């Protein structure tokens, strides 16, 4: 069971992105509410209030609705919107390099994976090649030494077989990996477009 401090901390965590005035008002209201209820009623208050997540969500949605309804020309509200724009622009010098780094790291990762796949794939091809060459050589000496032929032939066939399996496995792995990566990036790009206030979901 939560105590009051933890409850208020959770509220703080979820509301701290609000403009100072809205944040202060909300925190003050609930702190005073707890105070007036008295320490003995602490648990009862929390039960009545419900999850701090829900309480915070209500406050945030009221704030969002209020800002949509207000005329943009209203001086006080316009300032909030302007402030958000200014903050976004200020954040760009930091945000943009971070985003670029993120992209570069992902690209490097992709290149590495591609190279690994390529190497293993080539090993597979090489094995098949050796296998085929081996079989050919084996049959060349068939006249002289049957046992050698059988041995060589057998090993070569195994080699070729393994090679083919490796090649097929790599093709399947490639399809799966890049399919999953494509889905991941697709979802990630869509998430960027959603609004800021509802980022923190459980």
């Amino acid at each position: 069971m939560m105590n009051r401090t933890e409850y208020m901390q959770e509220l703080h965590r979820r509301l701290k992105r609000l403009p100072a005035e809205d944040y202060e008002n909300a925190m003050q209201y609930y702190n005073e509410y707890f105070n007036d209820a008295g320490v003995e009623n602490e648990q009862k208050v929390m039960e009545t209030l419900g999850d701090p997540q829900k309480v915070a969500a209500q406050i945030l949605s009221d704030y969002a609705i209020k800002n949509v309804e207000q005329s943009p020309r209203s001086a006080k509200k316009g300032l909030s919107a302007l402030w958000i724009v200014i903050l976004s622009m200020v954040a760009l010098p930091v945000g943009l390099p971070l985003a670029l780094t993120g992209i570069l790291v992902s690209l490097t990762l992709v290149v590495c994976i591609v190279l690994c796949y390529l190497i293993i794939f080539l090993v597979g091809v090489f094995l098949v090649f050796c296998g085929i060459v081996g079989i050919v050589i084996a049959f060349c000496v068939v006249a002289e030494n049957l046992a050698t032929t059988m041995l060589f032939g057998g090993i070569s066939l195994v080699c070729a077989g393994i090679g083919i399996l490796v090649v097929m496995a790599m093709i399947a792995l490639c399809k799966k990996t890049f399919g999953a990566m494509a889905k991941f990036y697709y979802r990630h790009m869509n998430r960027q477009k959603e609004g800021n206030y509802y980022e923190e979901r459980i």
Partner: protein
Amino acid sequence: MVFQISSNLLDACVLSVLEQGDAYGYLLTQQVKQVINISESTLYPVLRRLQKNECLVTYDQSFQGRNRRYYQMTPQGKTLLEQYRQEWIVYRSQVDHILMRGNG
């Protein structure tokens, strides 16, 4: 409580309680809850809305060494309250008419 109270009706009830006298958050909630079992647990969103619509103002008062924020109805709030009261009379008679069918 079967019937959900609409947000406008809740606004009206809060204003009506404040008409009796200024009150702080906890007290106001207790008073409203005595009469109506409101599902939302505190009136904070209601009070914020009324404040933004300039129906009430707040002031702080010290109590036992800590702060208490009081809510006070404005003349605009009083006007709105009277409007709500007129609407309620009409609404109540409409509901009675269909629900109580001669019993009300």
